[in-house]
């Protein structure tokens, strides 16, 4: 079954991204960054075991693990937003960070955005409410960093691919 790509996906490009896309992008990022962090820890354990012969085990309550994890998350999000305006999860969902007026966001905004991002969590998650109720769908960290999130995927090409697949399927004779 070929997935349908409606016109609304095409016309939505450049518009403020909605809550579902942003949440899914964040979930993918959280999973990807945690997976990479875990793999790195596993690699370190393996190397230490090979070199010293000692078994190294990481504990979630270990302050070193917590600090390095938090630092890694800041780096993962801050670097991605500063360099390209999108993280891996945002690239998958086709959304990107721009300046509040729609122009390309300066790298420092990406860094600031990642630094103030936890604030949206710390206020009982109320910081994220802006994505739903704020007129420009900007969360607290967006307001502080002067950024916004928009749809930026090639929906037009996706729609053409969908139409092409549909036409191709229609041309294939039954049982052929």
């Amino acid at each position, binding site marked *: 079954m070929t997935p*349908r790509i409606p016109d609304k*996906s095409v016309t939505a490009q450049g518009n403020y991204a909605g*809550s579902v896309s942003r949440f899914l992008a964040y979930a993918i990022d959280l999973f990807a960054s945690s997976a990479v962090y875990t793999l790195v820890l596993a690699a370190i354990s393996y190397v230490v075991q090979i070199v010293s012969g000692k078994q190294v085990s990481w504990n979630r309550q270990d302050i070193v693990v917590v600090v390095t994890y938090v630092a890694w998350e800041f780096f993962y999000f801050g670097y991605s937003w500063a360099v390209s305006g999108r993280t891996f999860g945002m690239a998958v969902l086709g959304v990107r960070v721009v300046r509040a007026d729609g122009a390309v966001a300066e790298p420092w905004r990406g860094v600031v955005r990642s630094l103030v991002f936890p604030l949206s969590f710390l206020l009982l998650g109320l910081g994220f409410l802006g994505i739903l109720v704020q007129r420009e769908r900007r969360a607290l960290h967006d307001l502080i960093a002067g950024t916004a999130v928009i749809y930026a995927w090639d929906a037009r090409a996706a729609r053409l691919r969908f*139409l092409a697949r549909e036409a191709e399927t229609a041309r294939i004779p039954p049982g052929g």
Partner: protein
Amino acid sequence: MNAHRRITDPVEGMAQRVAERVVDLVLNAVDLNAIIKRVDLNAVLAQVDVNALLAQVDVTALLEKVDLNSVLAQVDVSALLDQVDINGLLAKIDVDALVRQTDLGAVIARSSGGVATEALDAARSQAVGLDQTVDRWVQGALRRKRPAPSAPRALLDGEDTPPAPPSDAPAAPEPDAPAAPEPDAPAAQPSEPPAREAMK
């Protein structure tokens, strides 16, 4: 007989000379331009069977005499193209029908994307649909009088440089040419005009 000719020949010659002289005098005295101006050419042309006239013309022979290359060499193609509204022309092309009904669709289907691309297209499209559903609920609950802006100012008005185009950035949708709704897709939100300069 000879006597008769001796009289008539000089008279005829004289009459000829007199007639020529009279015609010269009359033509010099008459303003032909003024007369032509008074002629109703339309009435004259109405009596002419142009089709019958053209039927007698051998167009092929006529064109063989014309050096089309030299004629075309004198044509300023750039000036000609400047007068053509290419964007308007392209806007009239039904790309969807083009892809559906021509081999272009097969070329696109074979050259672009695999299962992963297909899944990604579907996931993104589904997410956009869910976003719009959630947004409709929230807007309905908030009962806003003024519709919220659909896109940042620079992307709506084209006042500023749009974001750096990603490799898969789409072309800007036309604001005054809303796309036709899908048969099974929910109606587009009238309060949300599409971004004009989005992601060129």
